[in-house]
């Protein structure tokens, strides 16, 4: 294989230098967290493209009212499979990929605590994806034997029971989701063990970089919530396979469909934070770097993440405001939900505080971080609106909710992913990317995210329900705008791939710290980092983490 590859990318054996297959095998069986991280990232990007294709099919169908592109039966499978691809196979594993690469280095460790478990956790994903999406393959090739489930990503029974969704595609979906849950639980255990046991000298908890902190909090969330999803899925599967014996959720057998919703959202609300918390971490690394200033209020940032995580567990019922639970209960859940906006708001103000008085340089990662700040604020504010019960009763299950979730996950999570991708690309590959293409990518992405999703707020307010195959013609114009926006948004992503290709072709070597002001340990290593990260055990030079202005001579540098 390429003999020019450096650092952890370099082949380990003589054989691998000449044979691509051996080199690939070396990667596939590697227990190096960096290589596993890169495999996670590549895998997620592929799955992200699957999810993107599903979403484009949705937007083509909705571009004009009336049946246009697919049949109603096919359409009903699209939103659920789009969400499944994006949530379980794109955003969550992509963050795990970044974390695999960065967390061990940021705490000064040679690798993860359980490298083999790490490899195992990754290799669960491709088969899980194959199981979950095999039904889509059948669908694409026009075979009716296996069809994807049409119960959305929420799989509410009784719609998801065998009586209403008897096809094996639904069983495959459930199996895939359980496998993904297993994989991310393994990952979470591994991250926690790593951060708790393998920090280098002087790396106390309140010295940890915020990205690592974000991963600690996320891992706790995963550990506590994923088993609940897995049990809900197992219960559902039992009920599907043996309807005579089990009826947890079917009212005919004395079960309660609302029980499933409680179990599902007990996972899936924290899952929203699983999908944004690492992004908070990424932004907290990027903004100080490009502002030449330490993060504003480090400890408040940490505690607000912990507060979001704790509160995230006691707000799940706000997804069920119209399911008929008691008014008093909903009032409680509403208050807790609104409280979450407080630590989230504090984070936004802290990022602004970091920028204020700094020396701002708008390279691509910083552009994405800034765009994230504004658009995530919109997503957060529409969240506050939705938390208010009476307003939610009007807006629940309309396009307003679709707009909100996409402002949080596309304008939020995806923007942080892009920011992180550009930020660490030189570190991961040892190559620089094209700054101008990066900027074009940013502007087109930002503009078309708003074109695509902002109008959906309006559709929701005017009463267009979500997951509709056909709609009231008075919504036609805005739907067309949204569809055109989504096509342009998808096209803009070609620039990212062009940039990647160009970067790999030009081979402009990156220095160890191309951003100059990045302070965490990964920037003390060469780009790309060597196989075992550190030649000798690093010692962290403690950073001022207090409040108020620091003395001018304290300019801590990471130890070499």
């Amino acid at each position, binding site marked *: 294989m390429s003999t020019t590859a450096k650092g952890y990318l370099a082949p380990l054996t003589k054989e691998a230098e000449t044979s691509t297959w051996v080199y690939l095998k070396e990667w596939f069986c590697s227990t190096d967290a960096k290589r596993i991280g890169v495999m996670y990232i590549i895998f997620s990007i592929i799955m992200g493209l699957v999810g993107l294709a599903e979403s484009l099919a949705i937007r083509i169908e909705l571009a*004009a*009212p*009336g049946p*246009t592109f*697919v*049949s*109603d*039966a096919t359409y*009903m499978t699209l939103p659920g499979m789009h969400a499944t691809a994006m949530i379980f196979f794109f955003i969550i594993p992509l963050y795990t990929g970044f974390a695999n690469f960065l967390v061990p280095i940021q705490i000064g460790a040679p690798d993860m605590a359980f490298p083999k478990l790490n490899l195992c956790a990754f290799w669960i994903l491709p088969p899980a994806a194959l199981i979950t999406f095999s039904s889509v393959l059948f669908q694409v090739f026009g075979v009716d034997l296996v069809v994807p489930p*049409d119960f959305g990503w929420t799989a509410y029974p009784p719609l998801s029971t065998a009586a209403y969704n008897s096809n094996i595609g639904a069983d495959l979906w459930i199996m895939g989701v359980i496998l993904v849950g297993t994989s991310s639980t393994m990952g979470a255990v591994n991250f926690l063990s790593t951060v708790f046991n393998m920090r280098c000298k002087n790396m106390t908890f309140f010295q940890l970089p915020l990205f690592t902190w974000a991963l600690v909090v996320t891992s706790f969330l995963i550990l506590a919530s994923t088993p609940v999803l897995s049990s809900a899925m197992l219960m559902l599967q039992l009920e599907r396979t043996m309807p005579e014996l089990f009826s947890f959720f079917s*009212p005919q*057998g*004395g079960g309660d469909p*609302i029980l499933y919703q409680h179990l599902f959202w007990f996972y899936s609300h924290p899952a929203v934070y699983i999908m944004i918390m690492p992004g908070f971490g990424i932004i907290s690394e990027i903004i100080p770097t490009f502002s030449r*200033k330490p993060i*504003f*209020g*480090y400890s*408040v940032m940490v505690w607000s993440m912990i507060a979001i995580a704790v509160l995230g567990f006691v707000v799940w019922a706000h997804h069920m405001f*119209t*399911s*008929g639970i008691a008014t008093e209960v909903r009032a409680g859940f*509403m208050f807790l939900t*609104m409280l979450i*906006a*407080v630590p989230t*708001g*504090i984070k936004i103000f802290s990022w602004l*505080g970091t920028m*204020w*008085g700094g*020396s701002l340089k708008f390279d691509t990662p910083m552009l994405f971080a*800034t765009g994230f*700040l*504004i658009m995530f604020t919109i997503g957060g*504010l529409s969240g506050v*609106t939705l938390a*208010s*019960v*009476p307003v939610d*009763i*009007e807006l*629940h*299950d309309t396009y307003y909710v679709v707009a909100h979730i996409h402002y949080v996950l596309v304008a939020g999570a995806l923007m942080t992913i892009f920011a992180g991708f550009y930020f660490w690309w030189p570190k991961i590959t040892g190559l620089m990317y094209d700054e101008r293409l990066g900027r074009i990518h940013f502007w087109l992405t930002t503009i078309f995210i708003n074109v695509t999703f902002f109008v959906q707020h309006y559709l929701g307010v*005017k*009463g267009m329900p979500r*997951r*509709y*195959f*056909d*709609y009231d*013609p*008075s919504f*036609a*114009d805005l739907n067309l705008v949204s569809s055109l926006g989504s096509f342009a948004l998808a096209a803009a992503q070609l620039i990212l791939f062009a940039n990647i290709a160009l970067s790999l072709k030009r081979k402009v070597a990156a220095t160890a710290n191309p951003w100059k002001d990045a302070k965490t340990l990964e920037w003390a290593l060469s780009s790309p980092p060597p196989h075992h990260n550190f030649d000798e055990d690093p010692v962290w030079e403690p950073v*001022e983490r207090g*409040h*108020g202005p*620091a003395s*001018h001579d304290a300019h801590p540098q990471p130890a070499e």
Partner: protein
Amino acid sequence: MTVLGHLSKHMNKCTITTVLALLTALLIPGIAMAIPGAGDFTSLESPSGREIADLYNILAKICFVIFVLVCAVLFGAILRFRRKSEDENPEQIHGNMKVEMGLLLAASLIQVFIGIKTIDTMWYVEKLPETKMTVEAIAYQWDWQFRYPDHGGFITEDLVIPAYTNVKLDITSKDVIHSLFVPELGIKMDAVPGRFNYWWVNADGPVNQVGIEPNLEGNTPAKLGTTRSDNTVIRQTLNALSLVQTEERHPNTSGLEQRVTYLAASRKVDDKYAKYDAVEYRGMCTELCGKGHYDMYFRVVAMTPASFAQWLEDQKNGGDKEVDGKEIYDSKCASCHGLEGAGIAGQFPPLAGSEWVTEDNDENKRRHVQVVLEGLKGAVTVKGVEYNGVMQPWFNVLNDDEVAAVVNHERTSWGNAGGEVDSKLVAEVRESLGYPAFSAGGAIPVPEQDLISEGEKIYAACVTCHGADGKKGSAKLANSPKALSDVPGYVSMLVNGTQAKSAMGQSMTDREIAAIITYTRKSFGNDASAVQPAEVARIRKEVTK
């Protein structure tokens, strides 16, 4: 500073201008929402809906102010603190406890304010006021039924209510979870099988609409044209992209196309409600419920009290409506059997040319009527091919005339020549199946053994509290005085619930309640007489008042 320096500074300004221009472009949609009317809530046609809209407007304003503040700080920072030279070294501030805590406090205060404001509205919107009547909304895949228990329990496909009157809605589902949504009235509530959720509505009536719909002044046309906008170019392009031709995939236009006259927030009432003084609102389903989720539109027709009384009268007398078998078939049967009676392979058998509907003899006719009345479950063979689907019973939806009309439509269309039936035959079959005459209470007693075996099945849902032997805890049924001697009390408890017991029977039919009562009166060592559905119907009417 050198010329180059000046130039780069100038360039910087250019970039700043671009940045500002583009970000302003992003702000426009945000500002557009703040302009009165642009982002207006739709729930403006009922008092509680208007409360919700008011609350939303307050929230939107608060959110908008916060958004503007964030933008102002951010743009301020972008303008003031851009890096001017490479060796710039800003002051290393690590935070400011006072500012951070101040922001924390401010954010909390805003949230508490919003919370209190919300709870205020919530109690007004949700607390059930004194209601004049109750309508049961029953969802199924993929349509709605509205039952009027206060008026003999007849069933309609549209929600017809008196305007300016508090009406209680009892919402449930027959199969999967649906959700009842009427945007203009600000009501949404999930229809969950196995339980009744309630909501209430007080819809604005025709008075409020004067001047809003200038079309109402002239003669309302008998049938309004479609409001579907002319997107033919886009539709054709999309169809061309698609691998399969639309015509092949969709032999018929969607139900939406047929009902589109009253969409687009049009408040005109037409055809069958044209003679009443009324306005209508669009109702739909908002919980994913399978293939036909998008096609569960219903009308909410709010009438003046006089018109409503007239409408009730017309319902009871069948009105002056001519029964049209084709119309009933298209709206109720075609979703499974196809507009041309072609059926769906494997699930729903064809009707065109089917031996079940084409043999011109009495036995064949009776079987046909029976299937329509009681539905069908399990495998059947039609034209040599096996089908295995579920057909719902229609005995409580269609009256004898309607059943006869739809049966005749099926027996004489698509080349079928199976001879006609009349409503007398339907009445006979209905009676022989033990169904009550439509739509009043039942007349022929149901066999005791049937009630017991049906009741036994229903009792499976009661075992958790009452035990398999009816002797569990304080909720003993064995030898219970209520079960043995107080039938009205028993019915009332089932229908209305008590402190300790939820209203389990609210979602049950009279026959189901009769079955469960009979079962408990005959089991666990109890031996009391059977209770008939007709008796339950009578008691139910009394106790629900």
